[in-house]
């Protein structure tokens, strides 16, 4: 007599039959970015001739029927501009979870393809696509999808105005390596070699001091010393020239925070009632007022940058009790990236006030990038100032330079060179209208 079969043996569950492939993170992927192909569209050049539609439909359906093409050129009657809508080959495509038969897959080369074996032409992918990329052929009611002609797109080849360009993005991210080495060198210099030079340093006529410390010094001593102001001016001048470059590239505590961030990739989130970037100006005011009331530089005794820099070298690195403030504040990193810099750091607050006189700005031209299908810049931004929601809607996000620490991660990460450094007064092209 045959035994009754287990239910597990007979399982027709799609999770068992065809499980979703999970993307693995590799070491080489960390150093060399995956070069996913993509078609960029330039609205300035497009004349709306429709050659791309014709050539695409000729390839897909063997006849010239522009409505059946996987690329559609739309014309805005009011502004007179054209826009080509085509599959963006998103980083996290919405069509993949929407497909009930799991026919859509993103290959390891970054091209999103439909497996015709499983596709039932139901059109749920069309409903899920935020760009409403053309998928369903209105004639035959079949699903066609742009597969970038397997890496050699005909629409790009045949566009007479070269409005479409085929790109694979950057091959090498060099700013990353430069920033990490500059951070490491300045950490070694400020913390280990020239101990205490960040807080105050004087050699002959050259003097340098921390601007927040100088403010507290003025408040506590009640005397304005010209040398003190001029020595603090060095960092403020750098801020006017290049934004809060200090925070992103030089600050030794920032380097510690970036290292801690590397070992805590999963963030717990920051309580929303503490989510005010104005807090750091309050901390600055409290530090100055406290110094005035107490008669000594109140905040400097607990300042994480100061405690690091004044920790008396390698020998007594762990002897100094005030160093305990560094791991305590660095542990805030498990809540959000650079939580201390975002919300509390009074040094950053002084530099933030100085950026009102800034010379440069960072622009992200959303018209030239993949928008909702990429948003890598918003993901890598350690200060979280790039508005992912605006990018999803195709608007160039305005970047508040008082918060930007000029780490240039966005420039480094953007595969399409949409993030750029510009002078403040420079009129950017209309497609980069973020200021």
């Amino acid at each position, binding site marked *: 007599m045959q035994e009754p079969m287990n239910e597990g043996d007979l399982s027709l569950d*799609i999770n068992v039959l065809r499980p979703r492939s999970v993307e693995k993170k590799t070491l080489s992927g960390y150093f060399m970015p995956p070069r996913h192909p993509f078609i960029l569209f330039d*609205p300035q050049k497009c004349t709306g001739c429709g050659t791309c539609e014709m050539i695409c439909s000729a390839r897909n359906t063997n006849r010239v029927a522009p409505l059946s093409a996987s690329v*559609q050129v*739309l014309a*805005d009657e009011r*502004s007179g*501009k*054209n*826009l080509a*809508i085509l599959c963006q080959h998103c980083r996290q495509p*919405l069509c993949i*979870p*929407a497909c*009930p*038969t799991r026919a859509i897959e993103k290959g390891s080369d970054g091209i999103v393809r439909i497996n015709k074996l499983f596709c*039932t*032409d*139901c*059109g*749920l992918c*069309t*409903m*899920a*696509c*935020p*760009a*409403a990329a053309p998928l369903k052929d209105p004639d035959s*009611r*079949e699903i066609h999808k742009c597969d970038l002609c397997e890496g050699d797109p005909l629409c790009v080849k045949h566009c007479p105005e070269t409005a479409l360009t085929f790109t694979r993005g950057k091959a090498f991210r060099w700013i990353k390596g430069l920033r990490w080495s500059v951070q490491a060198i300045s950490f070694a210099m400020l913390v280990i070699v020239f101990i205490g030079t960040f807080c105050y340093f004087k050699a002959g006529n050259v003097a340098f001091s921390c601007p927040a410390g100088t403010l507290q010094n003025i408040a506590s001593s009640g005397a304005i010393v010209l040398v003190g102001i001029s020595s603090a001016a060095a960092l403020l001048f750098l801020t006017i020239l290049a934004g809060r470059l200090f925070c992103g590239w030089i600050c030794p505590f920032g380097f510690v925070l970036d290292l801690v961030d590397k070992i805590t990739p999963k963030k717990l989130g920051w309580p929303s009632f503490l989510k005010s970037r104005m807090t750091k100006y309050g901390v600055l005011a409290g530090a100055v007022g406290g110094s005035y009331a107490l008669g000594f530089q109140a905040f400097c005794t607990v300042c994480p940058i100061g405690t690091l820099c004044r920790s008396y070298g390698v020998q007594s690195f762990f002897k100094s009790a005030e160093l305990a403030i560094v791991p305590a504040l660095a542990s805030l990193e498990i809540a959000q990236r650079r939580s201390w810099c975002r919300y509390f750091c009074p040094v950053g607050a002084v530099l933030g006030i100085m950026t009102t006189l800034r010379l440069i700005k960072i622009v992200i031209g959303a*018209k030239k990038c993949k928008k*909702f299908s990429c948003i890598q810049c918003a993901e890598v931004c350690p200060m979280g100032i790039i508005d*992912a*929601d605006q990018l*999803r*809607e*195709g*608007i160039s996000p305005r970047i508040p330079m008082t918060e930007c620490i000029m780490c240039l991660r966005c420039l480094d990460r953007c595969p399409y060179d949409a993030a750029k450094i510009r002078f403040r007064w420079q009129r950017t092209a209309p497609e980069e209208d973020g200021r």
Partner: protein
Amino acid sequence: MKSRSDKIEEAKRVSGAYGCVECGRCVAACPMAEMYANFSIEMSPRGMIKKTLLGYPVVEDKNIWYCTECNAGTDVCPQGVSCRDLIRTLRGAAVADNLLANAQICKCCGRPFAALPVENFIRGRLKEEPPNVRELLTACPSCRREIYLKRNT
């Protein structure tokens, strides 16, 4: 103006429902089985064809709104019955009679463009996406293109 019974008759004729041999191949191929936990003969293509042929009140039936209008059933049918055309004609009759309780109305143009259960399925699958992305699901694809065009020009 066609009456409702005329439209049901037309649906039977257009889809070739009279040829149905109730083999059940369309049920095996139907993606609704993967989508809904309550998939049953009430909702399945074979059940719908049977109900239409037997004269049940199919136009008022909620079950016509679960279909994704895919082509899988027609592809496998030995008799060439198009369950998609049947459902589409029945839905047309329901829309003409203003039975729109289970249709998704486009928020921009006010046109019924999809079925609510199908939309709910997609919404459930995309529940981790931010709300401004899911909001787009309430706009029909052509209106969505208009929105996309307006944002980008």
